[in-house]
């Protein structure tokens, strides 16, 4: 059932991209859910520090959601390249929910903006807007979870599609849900948001409009959240692990064991830094990324094992090598890194102080380079394209 067109480059490359971009996606999903939750909690708690934090985090949530969506697009693409028979079938069997997901997200995101712009005790819009948004986002997560989990159970597809000898084309049912698996994606929202708070405290430490007391409070809150929820995450992880079919032999899988090692190390690290979270905020980033990255790769390995029992492997996907488009993407990606780098460097520097940011000569050159690269990209592609069109 794999697409007869094949894939334009080597499967392992697509797999690495799938895992990497998924890890980034889930990271921002975690941030979004966590910052929204803490914001809601802060407004309800009502004390000065909590209110201040709630206001910042409501704003951050809008950006986090956008980035979660942006990074969601990439693994969505790659899962369809490598696992199309499974992904498409799963989607068709729950088509109404697939479309519903889009509208649920629109409403939830819209409500989040209302919560951010008009929310908080002084502004009048009740916190309930934020709560509804959060519930909707979690439902969206349930849908994505179901689509990903249904994908792993081809043995059940016909049972789900054919009812009493007739096809059920309504697409109205979500057919599978596994609580420990779902929780293992959801719980880290609060752990990663803990890290977010630690970094927030670190980043604003030199700004005159933030008091040291407030930032220390935020940092400690973050560290506590990170440790507590990583502990819960480990427990949920074992719950999921033990509910896996024993035929997959996942408990002794080396990829999983590496991920487990990083996860547990991260847990110990978080315990160790409780006393001075601001100091360790930045070094927690590589620890977190290693854990998330290896865990994302373990999840992909688990998928490989599930589907291997049906004789499916991405490594035998028909390949119709296309170097041209492959090179186009990787070169464009390099251009993207330069440009996005300029953006992030600018905002990082600008946010550190209350004063209007004045770019250095270096930053100005970087900005000009970014514009130039974009223009060159267009010029090259347009020229190349015109040649191709005129030739044919």
């Amino acid at each position, binding site marked *: 059932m794999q697409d007869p067109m094949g894939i334009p480059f080597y499967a392992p490359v697509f797999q690495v991209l799938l895992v990497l971009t998924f890890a980034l996606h889930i990271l921002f999903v975690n941030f979004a859910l966590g910052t929204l939750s803490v914001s809601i909690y802060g407004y309800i708690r009502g004390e000065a520090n909590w209110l201040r934090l709630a206001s910042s985090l409501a704003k951050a949530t809008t950006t986090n959601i956008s980035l979660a969506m942006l990074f969601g697009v990439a693994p969505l693409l790659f899962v369809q390249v490598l696992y199309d028979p499974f*992904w498409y079938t799963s989607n068709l069997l729950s088509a109404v929910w697939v*479309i519903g997901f*889009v509208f649920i997200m629109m409403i939830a995101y819209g409500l989040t903006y209302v919560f951010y712009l008009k929310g908080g005790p002084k502004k009048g819009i009740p916190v309930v807007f934020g709560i509804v948004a959060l519930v909707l986002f979690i439902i969206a997560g349930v849908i994505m979870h179901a689509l990903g989990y249904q994908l792993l159970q081809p043995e059940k597809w016909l049972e789900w599609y054919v009812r009493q000898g007739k*096809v059920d084309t309504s697409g109205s049912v979500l057919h599978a849900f596994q609580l420990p698996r779902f929780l293992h994606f959801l719980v880290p929202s609060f752990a990663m948001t803990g890290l977010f708070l630690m970094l927030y405290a670190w980043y604003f430490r030199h700004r005159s409009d933030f008091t040291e007391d407030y930032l220390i409070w935020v940092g400690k809150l973050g560290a506590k959240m990170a440790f507590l929820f990583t502990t819960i995450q480990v427990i949920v992880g074992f719950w999921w692990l033990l509910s896996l079919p024993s035929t997959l032999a996942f408990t002794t899988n080396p990829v999983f064991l590496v991920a487990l090692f990083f996860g547990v190390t991260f847990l110990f690290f978080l315990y160790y830094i409780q006393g001075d979270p601001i100091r360790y905020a930045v070094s927690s980033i590589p620890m977190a990324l290693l854990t998330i990255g290896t865990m994302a790769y373990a999840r992909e390995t688990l998928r490989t094992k599930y589907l291997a029992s049906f004789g499916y492997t991405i490594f035998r996907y028909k390949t119709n090598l296309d170097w041209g488009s492959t090179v186009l993407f990787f070169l464009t990606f390099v251009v993207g890194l330069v440009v996005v780098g300029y953006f992030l460097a600018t905002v990082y520097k600008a946010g550190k102080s209350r004063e*209007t*940011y004045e770019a250095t000569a270096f930053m100005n050159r970087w900005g000009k380079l970014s514009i130039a690269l974009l223009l060159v990209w267009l010029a090259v592609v*347009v020229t190349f*394209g015109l040649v*191709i069109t005129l030739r044919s």
Partner: protein
Amino acid sequence: MYPIWEVPYISAGLVLGLIAAFHILPSHLSTGAMWFNIYVETKAYRENKPELKEFIKKYTLLLLVFSYVLGSLSGIGIWYAATVTNPRGISGLIHNYVWGWATEWVFFLIEVIGIFIYYYTFDKVDKKTHLTIGWIFALASWTTMVIIVGILSFMLTPGKWPKTGGFFAGFFNPTYWPQLFVRTAFMFVIAAAYALACATRVKDNTVRTSITQVASLWGIGGLLLGSLLLFWFLNTLPEKSKELLAILPSVELKGGLFVSLALLILYFLFARLKPLKINVYTAVFAIIVIFGGIWSLERMREMIRNPYVIPQYMFSNQIIAHTVEAKGVQSEEKVISEKGILKVFPFIPEGTREINQRNQWEAGRLIALLQCGSCHVLDQNGLRAMPQMIGRMNIKKGKGFNDQEIAQVENLIDSLGSYPYMLPFLGTAAEKRALALYLYSLAK
């Protein structure tokens, strides 16, 4: 063939159509608006008119909330809808153009990060930096259009791709450049209309007047240029598509385009002459008129691709109709005609694979769903409803099902290939009869 999703009355395809047509508003706003912003912002700095920034901030917030909430999600919505409407089609496109979409994504990355930064660094960074951010965003956003039009136009005119299987051969196809330029012209119309709407919320009347007057000019320019470029686009259409353009779209659909163009020119002229008379309700109404024009244009563009989803490769009903040697892909026509569609594809209930007296009607319905369902709903009423199609062919139900009457329907099935927008029936003789039986049962 994947499981099928049936949407009563409107069809799954129209769900996709609605989401996609809507998406044109926020997406073309994004690609067009920042050029207007850069223009106004540069003017604000050069002529020392900081009051113009009130407009820029509102316009950017609109972009942030409309384009980067509803726009992003409707874009993703198109993809999800294509997945559940025509999975083999979207799969075929992805397995050829994955790196094209990945490349477009790099520019999405720049856009999304860019819009947040452009909005939130207002008055927090120096003017040169802020304008630089604007320029980067404007260029990157238009580039997403440069890329997606390659794939969109490929679906109408695949160029040399059916022979060579080449990524770029299919991308830079005959209707690529015309479509790109038409959209580029019209994106300024959309940007202008939204600018006018935003201007009505600006408190400073001088600013409101000047923005409205300038935006109106952009709108008129975009409309005139876009209309001219449409002629170019029409000229590059293949003969078959031109034929379909003449016969498929309804009078209302064609008329809708002209009416909206005319109304919009009048609107922008009026706004240019009497800027303060435009209030937010007028402005929103104008956007609805634009949507009417978009609906007409995009529906017609999609119709003239019939009966293919990927020309010279895949039919709208997801059957692979042509061999593409360069990619090592075989046509499915022969194997379906010989073995039967119910035998060849998965997701067919076991009891229906072999046609017999008991399951004939059910088999016929399933065949109709598989081969006709992408364009015809099987309900009594709705989009090109099958019972109405049967009625139009003057097939009337007699007393019971006799061979002569069924043969009449079988003849109709055989004649399908003679309609330029219809697909030929593929399957065994038994399957044809089962289909005929089912279709006959829909007659009145």
